[in-house]
C-alpha cells in the first residue's frame, strides 16, 4: 500500500478518532504507527478530559486473578481437577475445527486452558507417525514480553518432559506415537528467555490441559 503523506495522515487521524472501521483499521494500525502516535498525542488532552469514574473493586480482583501465577509445586496433580471443563472444550474444539490441510485428521489433540478462566488458549495437534507437533495459539495475548513459554509433556509416570519453547511447529524427538502415547496432559510454564535452565519447569505453570489420542 503506497500512500501519499496527506492520505496517510488522514487515515491515521480517522483511526485515532475511531471513525475508521473494518479491516482497514487493522491495516492502518500496522502500517502507520508513527502517524497514529502523532494523532494520539494531539487528541490525548481530550481523552484525559473525560471525567474519571472509579471502577468496581471486582475489576481489579479479576485482573489480579489473571496475572497471578499458580503455585508451582506438583502442578500436574491438579490437572485432574480441572480437566472436566477442559475436556468439554476439547470436544467442542475437535468438533468445530475446520477440516485441516490433509484428509488425515490429527491423531493427538491437546487443548490447553487458562485454569483461572477455563478458556482454551492453545491447541496442539500431531499426526501419529509424524515427529511434529502443530501448535495453534487461540489467545495471542499469552505471549509475555521478555520471557519464554515452554511446553511440557506430563507423562503418566515420572517427571515432566520438555517439548521445547512454544512455537507454531515443534519438532518432537520421535513420532507422536512414541512421544505422546503415554502422555495424558500437556502444560506451558513461564520461563526465562531461552527456556528453563534446569530441565524441569522452573517458573509458574500458566496453562495446561488433556492430551487425547483420537485414533
Amino acid at each position: 500500500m503506497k500512500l501519499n503523506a496527506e492520505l496517510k495522515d488522514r487515515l491515521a487521524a480517522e483511526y485515532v478518532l475511531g471513525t475508521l472501521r473494518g479491516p482497514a483499521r487493522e491495516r492502518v494500525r500496522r502500517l502507520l504507527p508513527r502517524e497514529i502516535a502523532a494523532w494520539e498525542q494531539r487528541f490525548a488532552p481530550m481523552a484525559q478530559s473525560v471525567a474519571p469514574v472509579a471502577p468496581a473493586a471486582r475489576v481489579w480482583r479479576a485482573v489480579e486473578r489473571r496475572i497471578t501465577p499458580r503455585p508451582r509445586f506438583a502442578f500436574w496433580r491438579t490437572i485432574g481437577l480441572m480437566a472436566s471443563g477442559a475436556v468439554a472444550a476439547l470436544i467442542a474444539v475437535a468438533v468445530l475445527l475446520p477440516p485441516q490441510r490433509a484428509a488425515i485428521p490429527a491423531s493427538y489433540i491437546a487443548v490447553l486452558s487458562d485454569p483461572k478462566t477455563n478458556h482454551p488458549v492453545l491447541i496442539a495437534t500431531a499426526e501419529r507417525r509424524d515427529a511434529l507437533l502443530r501448535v495453534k495459539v487461540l489467545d495471542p495475548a499469552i505471549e509475555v514480553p521478555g520471557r519464554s513459554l515452554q511446553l511440557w509433556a506430563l507423562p503418566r509416570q515420572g517427571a515432566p518432559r520438555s517439548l521445547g519453547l512454544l512455537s507454531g511447529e515443534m519438532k518432537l524427538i520421535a513420532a507422536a506415537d512414541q512421544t505422546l502415547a503415554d502422555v495424558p496432559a500437556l502444560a506451558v510454564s513461564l520461563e526465562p528467555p531461552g527456556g528453563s535452565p534446569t530441565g524441569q519447569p522452573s517458573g509458574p505453570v500458566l496453562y495446561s490441559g488433556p492430551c487425547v489420542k483420537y485414533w
Partner: protein
Amino acid sequence: MAPPAQTLDELLARSAQGDRAAFARLYQASAAKLYGVALRILRREDWAEEVLQECYVSIWRHAAEYRPAMAAPMTWMTSIVRNRCLDWLRRPNPEPLAGDALESIEDENPGPLAALEASRDGAALARCLGALESRQRQAIAAAFLHGLTHAELARELREPLGTVKTWVRRGLARLRSCLEAQR
C-alpha cells in the same frame, strides 16, 4: 530492595519486570481515568468493566513494549483502552446505541472543551477545536468521545453520510494545521 516507584513510567517499567505490587499501584493511579474513557464509549458498565479488565491484563503482559519516546504512559494506556472499546463495538450484531446518544452529543457543544483548558496542550487543543465550525467540532468530539462511526454520526446528527464524512475530514485537517501553528 529498591525504593518504591513514583511515576507511571517507573511503575510500567517495574510491571514489565513482573513486579505485581508496582502494577497494582499503576492500576490504582490510572483505572478511574481509563474506566471513564471506556464507559463514555461503551455506555454500559458491564461492557466497560470487561474491557477494562482485558486491557489491564494486556498492559501487564505488554508493559515491556511501552516506549517512553513514543507516548506518555497515560496516552499509551488510553489508546489500548480506546482500541479495545472500538473493537468491542465492532463485534457482530452490536446492540443499538443507547437512546441518550443524541442528548450526550448535544452536550458536547461545546461542553467538554472547558475541561480541556487545564493543561497547556489541552488549552491548545481546546482553542483549535473552538476555531472549527460548530458542526465539525460536534462531529469530531462525538466520534472521539463516544466511539461513533460515520454512519452513527449521520444518524444522530440527522445529516447525510457524505456531509458528515466531509465535516470530519475537513475538521481534522484544520485541527492539525491549527495545532501545528500553536507549537
